[in-house]
C-alpha cells in the first residue's frame, strides 16, 4: 500500500503534528511519500519522496492552488491513500481533493479497522467503521490518534508546479485576543457546556481561586460569552499541562482533550458517567457540579495551615 501524506506549514514553520502522519503510515504498513507546500529551509526528515512547492509562491492558504499541487503529486505517485491532518488546513483541503479524485473521504480517523477506518461520532461518545467503496481513499487523521515517531532521514525532493491562481485571496493572519498564558499554571479548573448557566461559571472560578489556580474553559463556554476567548483550552485555544486539571461539566470532545491530556492528575466532574472525558480522567466524580463544587471549595478553604 502506498500513502501520500500531506504535510503542513504554519507561518513559515513545518507543523510538528505532521509526525502523526508518519505514525499513521507505519500503523498502516504503507510506503509513505509526502507533499508539502512549505519553506525550503524547514523540510521534514524521512526516507522517501517529498513533493515540494514553495509556500512563498503558492501561499499557505490557497485551497485551489494547493488542490492542484496535491493532484499533481497524486498523478505522479499514484497512491492508494492520501492522508491529511484533521486540522484547519486538512479538513478544508481534503474534500476538494476527494471530489477531484472522486474518491471516498473518511474524516477524523482514530484507528484502522480491517479494510476500513474507525471514526468517532456523536461528540466522541460513539464510533463506527467507515470503509471506502472506491479504489483510492482520502483520509483526515484525528489529532493525537496516532503516535509521533522521531523523524530522521533525508527525503528525495521533487519540486512540483501548478497554476497558482485562486479566487480566494489570503490577506494574512491575526491573533484577535491577548492570550492569558495558561501553559505555566500548576492548577487549572475548567468549565464546559455542562455548567449550564453563566452564574455557575463562578462556582468554577471559586474552586480555581481556592486551589490557587487559573480558570479555563472548553469551546461552548467561550462561544456563549461566559469567559474570555483567551482562556479557551483545546486545539483552537491553548495547550496546557498543569499538575492538576479539574474538568467541570466538560464532555471531553477530542478537540478539548488534545489541549489538556498531558496534565498530571485529571479530575472530571460530570453527571454523565459515559462522557468521553472518562478516557483521560484519573478520577471521575459523578455529581451535579452545582452541589459538588461549592462543597469541595468550602473544604479546601477550611483546611488548616493553607494560606494564600
Amino acid at each position, binding site marked *: 500500500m502506498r500513502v501520500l501524506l500531506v504535510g503542513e506549514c*504554519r507561518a513559515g514553520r513545518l507543523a510538528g503534528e505532521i509526525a502523526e502522519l508518519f505514525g499513521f503510515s507505519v500503523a498502516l504498513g504503507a510506503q509513505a511519500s509526502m507533499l508539502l507546500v512549505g519553506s525550503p529551509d524547514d523540510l521534514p526528515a524521512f526516507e522517501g519522496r517529498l513533493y515540494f512547492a514553495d509556500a512563498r509562491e503558492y501561499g499557505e*492558504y490557497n*485551497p485551489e492552488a494547493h488542490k492542484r499541487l496535491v493532484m499533481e503529486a497524486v498523478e505522479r505517485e499514484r497512491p492508494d491513500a492520501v492522508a491529511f491532518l484533521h486540522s*484547519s488546513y486538512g479538513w*478544508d483541503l481534503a*474534500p*476538494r481533493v476527494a*471530489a*477531484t479524485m472522486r474518491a471516498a*473521504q473518511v474524516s*477524523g480517523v482514530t484507528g484502522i479497522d480491517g479494510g476500513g477506518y474507525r471514526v*468517532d*461520532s*456523536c*461528540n466522541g*461518545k*460513539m*464510533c*463506527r*467503521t467507515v*470503509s*471506502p*467503496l472506491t479504489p483510492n481513499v482520502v483520509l483526515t487523521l484525528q489529532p493525537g490518534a496516532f503516535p509521533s515517531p522521531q523523524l530522521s532521514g533525508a527525503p528525495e525532493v521533487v519540486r512540483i508546479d501548478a497554476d497558482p491562481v485562486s*479566487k*480566494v*485571496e*489570503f490577506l*494574512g*493572519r*491575526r*491573533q484577535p485576543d491577548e*492570550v492569558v498564558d495558561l501553559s505555566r499554571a*500548576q492548577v487549572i479548573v475548567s468549565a464546559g457546556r455542562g455548567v449550564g448557566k453563566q452564574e455557575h461559571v463562578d462556582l468554577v472560578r471559586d474552586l480555581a481561586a481556592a*486551589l*490557587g*489556580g487559573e480558570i479555563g474553559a472548553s469551546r461552548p463556554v467561550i462561544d456563549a460569552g461566559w469567559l474570555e*476567548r483567551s482562556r479557551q483550552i483545546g*486545539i*483552537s*485555544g491553548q495547550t496546557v499541562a498543569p*499538575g*492538576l486539571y479539574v474538568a467541570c461539566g466538560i464532555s471531553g470532545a477530542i478537540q478539548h482533550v488534545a489541549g489538556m491530556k498531558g496534565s*498530571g492528575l485529571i479530575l*472530571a466532574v460530570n453527571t*454523565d458517567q459515559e462522557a*468521553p472525558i*472518562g*478516557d483521560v480522567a*484519573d*478520577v*471521575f466524580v459523578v*455529581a451535579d457540579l452545582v*452541589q*459538588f463544587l461549592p*462543597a*469541595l471549595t468550602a*473544604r479546601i478553604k477550611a483546611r488548616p*495551615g*493553607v494560606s*494564600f
Partner: protein
Amino acid sequence: MNILVCIKQVPDMGGRFTPNACGTWFDDAGLVFRMNDCDEYAVEEAVRLKEQLGGTPDVTVLSIGPARVVETIRKALAMGGDRGVHIDDPSASERDPWQISAMIAGHAMSRKYDLIFTGMQSEDRGSAQVGVLVAERLGISCVTGTIGFGWMDGIVTVERELEAGMRGMMKLTAPALLTCQQGLNTPRYPTLPNIMKSKKKEIVVLRPEEVGLDGPLSSAAGFRTHEHKTAGLVLTGDAGDIADRIVALLDAKTTVFRRGGAR
C-alpha cells in the same frame, strides 16, 4: 439576492445512543432532536445579512431527512428564513457526505444562489465534508471554519479559524459557500410572533430523486459505544462525602496544599 442555508437536525448529544438494526447508525428511539449547533450560526449570519441589506435578500433554508426535520426547518424560519426546502429522505442517515452533497448541489444548481451558508460540521458525524463538496460540485469559491463575515457589494471578507487562537483573513467574490464555525455570531432565540409567522411560511417538499441522487463512495458499519478507558477511580454518592475524599486525594497525590497552589 438569494441566500441558501443548509441545516441538519441532530440528536441532543446528552442522549443515550443505541445502534439501529443494521448497525450503521443510531436508533432514533428515545432521542431528542434539534438543530446542529454550527448550523444555528449559519442561519443567524444569513438573517443578519438580510437585515443589513434592508430585507431584500431571500433566505431559503434546506434540510435533508425524515419528516421530523420539518420542525428544525420551522425553527430556522422563525429565526428569519423566508422559505424552506425539505428533501424528504427517510434514508438520509445511510447516505455518505458525497450523496448528501449531490442532493444539495442538485437543488442549488439551477437557482443561482449568491451565497450558501452551511455549518462547518455536524455534531453527530463531524465529517466537515458536505459544504466543501457542494462548493466543488457547483464550482464556486469556498471557505471553511468561518468565524467572521462581511459583505459589501458582492465582495465577501471572511475570517477563518486556524489553530491556537489564530485567524486567517480572506477576500473573495460571490457566488461563494461558507461553512460556519461556532462563535461566528450569537444565534437569536425566535420570538413568539416570529414563531407564529413561521408557521405560515412555505416549505417545499422534494424527493431525493427529484434533486439528484448519486451513488455512495463509502459505507459504514459497527456503530458502537466508544471503547472508553474507565477512569481509575469513579466516585458517586453524596457530594459532601465525595468532596472529603477528593481533599484527601489531592493532599496525597498533589502538592497544591503544601505550596499554597500555583501562584
